[in-house]
């Protein structure tokens, strides 16, 4: 038994045991027992993933576990990346969950038993080696996550609504994947992945395209890609924060995994030349998701909803990389395909790290204040220095500025897109500049979004009494945040440690050699000109800071600073109501993008009874509806409701009529059988 297999079994075994522990341990120890074992299970999955990425592989066949098809697990390098990400997220979230579940009354048997099952299901999805196994694990993941999303349904009605959206959309996605993979398996000897790979060469382009689109719909909806994202900004904010972190940092990645697995690996044999439009579609939808997601995040005021939309944005960026990799691979430019894929995979890793951190610290602020609206937060620096620092670090990483983590992956992505222009054909010449523009607009809006989220949410003065009273979270939550923060810092300063492995996996996925070369602390692109040293950049910046500080110390007066009032125009102390809020902060952006967003606002002015010149009250409401949801989902929902109402006329409650229906249906069926025979 090699290391991969041993670690994987440990992860699954500990996961299963901790589900049992969640059921059996007494309430007082339950969160601790489950939290620690989730962390252990995650660490084992991390080890297994890293071992798989470095070249070890393993296969397990359990023919008796599932009737007919059996269960088949295979660990390879591509699956290893996702295994490692899931494991890493679980390590941080497990410890964080101990304090969070205690504080939030989530230490009941149900939640504590389902949480480790969810992690285990996510560990198993990327190692599934056959259609049946993949679908089984996928469904297990969907069901356990659904149970966790609705954990707090008794407290808030919005949770139940989010749960319904999630349940319906995740299962429609499941149906799409099922159709795609069954069509695929019907053309192969059996449902195992090697058999599918073999059969891919014999598929007609139409069937291959159908399989790609059907699975793409299912996997894309899990990844929160526009226009299938509607569940994401509902489910992520309403789930408990540790679950949000797991879903946003680990589960959505598996949608990307599915697209890469089917498009590059399983359908790899069918993809020669004819498949440009697949990847063009992926790239376009990715770019649209990135812009739409970050635009909604930029004007949003609910902290966790904002982070949910930011997940849509980041998955969009990843799919831009995946789509570009596919386009380059089909046009034969393998080094660039490898580069784009490496950028996408590195961005997945970075996103997992900073989104874990952001959801954890947002959850910590939420737990301390009970407020999730940015307009009610603020001033948390005084009461919660650790959480504030954690969110600040995560915001830096998420806004793609140096020395943050996402800067490196977005740099790689832009390099791949830029160098794609001279070589590729006409479609690439039109798409690549627009993709660069989309990535650039996303980067700009992400800066504005996270300045708002961090500045308004955590700095300045408290905007509600709850925010003013906020106290720091318990040590276990801070430890969880610390682990995620360490991962963010490590990825930002030393991406050179992970990039060789990720580059090799990316190269192998698209069938190229290693697209990156690590030269000391510098990342050098292979095949095209380009180099960047994140560590050197940070060191230069630190030297710059030290030099500035020394210069100021030498020149400035040595007198101690005097505390003074803020400038209030001489009108007495400023109150918190005079501060800028998240709504007012985003107002200029909302105006600029009004054509896309179509905010609805109305002002009600009540005049004084005596005179219409005197105003008694003014009420202002603003709502920014999700336009895609309104245009695409609401007509469907309305039509379905109308169908339901029309159908009700058929069921007036008369038993005779129901018996009649049965009789006529049976006769009809018999006639049909006679006719078709």
């Amino acid at each position: 038994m090699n290391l991969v297999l041993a670690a994987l079994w440990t992860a699954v075994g500990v996961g299963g045991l901790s589900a049992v522990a969640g059921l059996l341990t007494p309430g007082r120890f339950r969160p601790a027992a489950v939290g620690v074992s989730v962390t252990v299970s995650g660490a084992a999955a991390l080890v297994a993933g890293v071992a798989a990425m470095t070249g070890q592989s393993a296969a397990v066949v359990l023919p008796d576990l599932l009737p007919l098809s059996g269960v088949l697990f295979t660990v390879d390098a591509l699956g290893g990346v996702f295994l490692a990400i899931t494991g890493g997220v679980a390590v941080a979230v497990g410890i964080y969950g101990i304090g969070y579940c205690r504080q939030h009354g989530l230490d009941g048997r149900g939640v504590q038993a389902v949480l480790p099952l969810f992690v285990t299901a996510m560990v198993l999805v990327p190692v599934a080696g056959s259609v049946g196994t993949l679908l089984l694990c996928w469904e297990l993941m969907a069901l356990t996550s659904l149970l966790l999303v609705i954990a707090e349904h008794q407290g808030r009605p919005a949770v139940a609504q989010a749960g319904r959206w999630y349940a319906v959309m995740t299962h429609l996605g499941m149906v799409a994947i099922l159709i795609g993979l069954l069509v695929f398996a019907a053309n192969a000897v059996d449902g195992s992945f090697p058999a599918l790979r073999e059969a891919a060469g014999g598929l007609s382009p139409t069937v291959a395209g159908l399989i790609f689109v059907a699975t793409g719909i299912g996997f894309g909806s899990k990844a929160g890609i526009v226009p299938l994202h509607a569940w994401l900004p509902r489910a992520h904010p309403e789930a408990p924060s540790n679950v949000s972190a797991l879903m946003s940092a680990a589960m959505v990645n598996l949608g990307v995994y599915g697209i890469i697995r089917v498009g590059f690996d399983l359908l790899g044999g069918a993809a020669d030349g004819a498949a440009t439009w697949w990847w063009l579609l992926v790239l376009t939808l990715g770019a649209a998701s990135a812009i739409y997601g970050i635009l909604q995040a930029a004007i949003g005021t609910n902290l966790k909803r904002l982070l949910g939309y930011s997940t849509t944005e980041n998955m969009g960026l990843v799919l831009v990389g995946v789509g570009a990799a596919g386009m380059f691979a089909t046009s034969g430019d393998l080094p660039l395909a490898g580069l784009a894929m490496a950028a996408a995979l590195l961005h997945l890793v970075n996103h997992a790290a900073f989104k874990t951190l952001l959801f954890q610290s947002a959850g910590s602020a939420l737990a301390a204040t009970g407020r999730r609206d940015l307009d009610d937060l603020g001033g948390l620096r005084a009461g919660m220095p650790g959480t504030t620092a954690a969110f600040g670090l995560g915001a830096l990483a998420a806004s793609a500025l140096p020395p943050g983590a996402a800067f490196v992956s977005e740099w790689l992505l832009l390099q791949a897109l830029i160098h794609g222009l001279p070589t590729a054909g006409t479609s690439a010449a039109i798409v690549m500049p627009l993709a660069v523009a989309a990535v650039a607009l996303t980067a700009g809006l992400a800066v504005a979004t996270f300045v708002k989220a961090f500045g308004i949410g955590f700095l300045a003065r408290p905007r509600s009494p709850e925010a003013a009273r906020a106290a720091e979270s318990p040590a276990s939550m801070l430890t969880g945040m610390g682990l995620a923060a360490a991962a963010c810092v490590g990825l930002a300063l030393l991406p050179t440690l992970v990039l060789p492995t990720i580059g090799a996996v990316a190269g192998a996925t698209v069938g190229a050699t290693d697209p990156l070369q690590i030269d000391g602390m510098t990342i050098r692109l292979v095949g095209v000109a380009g180099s960047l040293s994140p560590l050197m950049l940070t060191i230069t910046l630190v030297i710059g800071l030290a030099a500035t500080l020394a210069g100021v110390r030498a020149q400035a007066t040595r007198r101690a600073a005097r505390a003074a009032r803020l400038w209030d125009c001489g009108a007495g102390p400023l109150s918190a109501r005079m501060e800028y809020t998240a709504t007012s902060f985003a107002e200029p952006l909302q105006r600029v993008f009004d054509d896309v967003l179509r905010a609805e606002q109305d002002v009600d002015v009540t005049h004084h009874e005596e005179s219409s010149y005197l105003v008694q009250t003014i009420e202002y409401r603003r709502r920014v509806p999700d336009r895609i949801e309104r245009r695409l989902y609401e007509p469907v929902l309305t039509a379905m409701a109308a169908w339901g109402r029309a159908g009700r006329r058929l069921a007036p409650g008369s038993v005779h009529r129901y018996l009649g229906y049965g009789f006529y249906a049976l006769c009809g069926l018999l006639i049909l059988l006679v006719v078709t025979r």
Partner: protein
Amino acid sequence: MTGLGVAGVVLQLLIVVALSPLLTGMMRQLRARMEGRAGAGVGQPWRDLRKLMRKRPIAPHGTTEVFRTAPLVLVATCLVVAAVAPFVTAASPLDPVADLFAVVALLTLGTVALALAGIDTGTAFGGMGASREATIIALVEPTLLVAIFALSVPVGSTNLGAIVTSTLHDPAQVFSPVSLLAAVALIVVIIAETGRLPVDNPSTHLELTMVHEAMILEYSGPDLAMVELASSMRLTVFLGLLANLFVPWGIATTGQPLLVAAAVLAFVAKVALLGALLAVGEVFLAKLRLFRVPELLAGSFVLGLLAVGASFFLA
């Protein structure tokens, strides 16, 4: 690591730090003369800085580390860019940092630090400035990156040194439509990034029009000195980048002292000329309404996209 590279870094730092307040002073003096005023003299910004440095620092109530460290970050990012950009020589020893994306992102980092400091004060002015600045950054960034894209396509690299060297070897590049369109797009963006007319008025203290000044309203003493120095340095750095990306001639390619001295003079002359042009232009312009600024930036974005299109169809 060549001797030329090290000398270049030291020289560039010295030039940018010492001469950027003079650039601001020169521009103000030019404007004053053209508007029929006497003006305070070219050295006034340096005298202001010296005065501010001697003042006792003031810590406004309720502000955090973010407010206190923002000026440091702002100056430091400008220093890093001044050290790595190809102003005097393209042979920077910090070559892996001298990427156009990295430089742009570093300058944005400085702006972000200042915007957070504005919010951190908790005053309406600070939040207002930060909100407006964030909006402008969000719109400037795409234009900037698309313009970079256009410039890097003929060269095949986004490294600043590579772009400059390539233009030196092939002077015809400068007069191609790609370069010209990208140059116009970059000029608009630089005006927005450095807070000049018609996007922001650097000499106003009127709440309806302030962007940069609103964010820094609570700074005083040495902190204000750093912010003022940094905004002059930003202007110098952006003008220097514009000058050397499109007209790199004069830059030192070998380490001969005479050539290096000539490179220093050429750089100073180019930046001074651009600064003077900007100042003259500002005399004839009024500030745009804040909500007209996106139209300006969208226009420059289209120019950037046209430049990219041209770079493909003319390649």
